[in-house]
């Protein structure tokens, strides 16, 4: 027996329970291809833990709503008249029809199109047509839209079907510090959603989960993007051999990959970094709009976002300058959102900033970006290749030889290492083991 395949064999690979398919340095390819495992993931993970559903900027006022999914279940996230955020199952209590088919908007409530049962923004059943048939049969206050627990941290809104889940802030733990750092890219203003790219690929959701903590692939898969950007941006992303670029395991399956550590905390600026030439026209516009040198510098240093990918288990990554949100469709199909972010401030300042941020986003992200299609090609290949030799492991052992605790106590290795994947799979193993 080789050490590599000692735990998975052709004889045992289909008999091992899901949790046994994750080992400290490897996982079985079955994790990508087994429909039975996918079904268990939907209940044991996506209906059991905190799932990111919205950013607070997507719900700017009372009546704002957004349709999305928790795992495979359709939900509506709303802001009600009291300013509370609600996550409601998008399913009429009468015969099960969806009550909202708009992606986003503003509403006073939701009326089922089938028999016109109507619900308020917090999900309460308000009206039933021809109610005499329900007298003594249905009590309206007992059949609201199903509400999911909903909590938020620094603009990030999460929901869970699990009433026994730990408080969100406990689930996030040390991630909170990194969320706070991420939001500094507003350059002194809050961060807001500018738009969302959506694309799909024929592969398992965990292939995408791994990718945002995979520094190793960057200069290889993204050589085309690297060749197209200015030298300053290419230099910024040249982290392959820089020992200061590290990945931390933050616990609970979360991790952070610091590709540009000098931009991890955008408040720290010793003044030596030159603003990129590509933003000369923007700088002139900002100065003409009345921004002083310090504000211009703060905004322009943030144009590429932060210097890290913060990967939250299981469905969202706060990735440099955008959110990556994954939605599992089936064992071999996943839909992805790339949510573009900008600053929320006075128009004369943030309009030119956000316009240029949109162009930076379009350059890499989305179905026709210079980065995303190459990622998707890689993931498609993983799904196809992983059909072969199910006993042969997927390796997640890069950097085990140099992983050590940081002063904060976070297991840490180089940014090109697979510490973040190991963190996610350890959480996956724990959740898939729970009865």
């Amino acid at each position, binding site marked *: 027996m080789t050490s590599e395949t000692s735990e998975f064999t052709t004889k045992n690979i289909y008999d091992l329970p899901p949790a046994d398919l994750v080992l400290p340095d490897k996982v079985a390819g079955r994790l990508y291809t087994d429909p039975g495992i996918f079904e268990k993931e939907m209940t044991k993970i996506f209906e059991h833990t905190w799932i990111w559903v919205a950013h607070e900027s997507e719900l700017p006022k009372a009546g704002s709503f957004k349709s999305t999914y928790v795992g495979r279940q359709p939900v509506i996230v709303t802001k009600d008249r009291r300013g509370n955020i609600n996550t409601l199952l998008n399913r009429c209590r009468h015969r099960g029809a969806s009550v909202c088919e708009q*992606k986003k908007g503003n509403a006073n409530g939701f009326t089922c199109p089938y028999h016109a049962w109507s619900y308020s923004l917090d999900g309460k059943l308000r009206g039933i047509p021809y109610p005499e048939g329900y007298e003594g049969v249905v009590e309206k206050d007992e059949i609201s839209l199903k509400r999911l627990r909903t909590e938020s941290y620094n603009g990030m809104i999460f929901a869970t079907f699990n009433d026994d889940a730990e408080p969100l802030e406990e689930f996030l733990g040390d991630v909170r510090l990194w969320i706070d750092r991420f939001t500094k890219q507003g350059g002194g203003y809050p961060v807001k959603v*500018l*738009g*969302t*790219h*959506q*694309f*799909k*690929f*024929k592969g398992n959701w965990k292939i995408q989960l791994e990718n945002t903590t995979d520094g190793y692939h960057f200069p290889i*898969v993204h*050589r*085309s*993007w690297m*060749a*197209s950007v200015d030298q300053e941006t290419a230099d910024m992303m040249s982290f392959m051999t820089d020992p200061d670029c590290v990945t931390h395991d933050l616990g609970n399956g979360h991790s952070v990959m610091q590709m540009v550590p000098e931009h991890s905390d955008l408040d720290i600026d010793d003044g030596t970094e030159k603003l990129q030439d590509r933003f000369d026209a923007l700088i002139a516009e900002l100065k003409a709009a009345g921004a002083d040198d310090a504000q211009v510098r703060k905004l322009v240093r943030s144009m590429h976002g932060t210097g890290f990918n913060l990967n939250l288990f299981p469905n969202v990554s706060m990735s440099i300058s955008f959110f990556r949100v994954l939605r599992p469709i089936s064992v071999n199909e996943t*839909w*992805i959102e790339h949510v*573009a972010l900008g600053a929320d401030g006075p128009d004369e300042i943030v*309009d030119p900033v*956000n*316009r240029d941020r*949109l*162009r930076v*986003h*379009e*350059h890499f992200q*989305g*179905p*026709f970006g*210079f980065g*995303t*299609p*190459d*990622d*998707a*090609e*890689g993931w*498609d290949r993983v799904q*196809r290749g992983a059909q072969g030799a199910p006993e042969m492991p997927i390796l997640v052992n890069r950097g085990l030889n140099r992983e050590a605790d940081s002063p904060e106590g976070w297991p840490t290795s180089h940014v090109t290492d697979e510490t973040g994947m190991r963190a996610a799979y350890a959480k996956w193993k724990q959740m898939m083991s729970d009865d």
Partner: protein
Amino acid sequence: MTETLSPTSAPSVASVLGDPRVIRAVGLAWHEADLLDRKQYEAWKGLYAEDGLYVIPLDPETEDFDHTLNMVYDDARMRDMRVTRMTEGYAIAAVDAARTVRTVSRFIPVLVTDSEVTLRSAQVLVAYKRENHDLWASENTYTIRLSPLGDEIVKKVIRLIDSEGPVPAAGFLL
């Protein structure tokens, strides 16, 4: 002579096929479609005016591409880089791109002058890769500058009917 057709008026076949200015514009749109299906990207780039735009918006209604997120919003500089990306061999999605075949038809003249023609049209594209066919349907609007020196595309806007939903990541152009 300028002819602006109201969006609700039904153009006669003669107004499309009987106007040599419209025929020139349709011919250029078909030529572009053929070059894209054959992945002749250098030649494709040459069809565009220096000030031309190639746009695949997300928002079905917007004309303000500057301030909205698009799938593609290419000026000459971005088109140059995109053609390099599609041809230089580094982009694994382009190296292993789907084969495509597209039909552009149902041309509606929107604005016809001696110097410029704007056409709405329907495009149906089928992309084949690895035992899978994907359907891409869009309304394409072409603005074509007519010139004795050679007609050029000054704006092409591709409005996918599913632009607000997830589409496959593509290694080809629409």
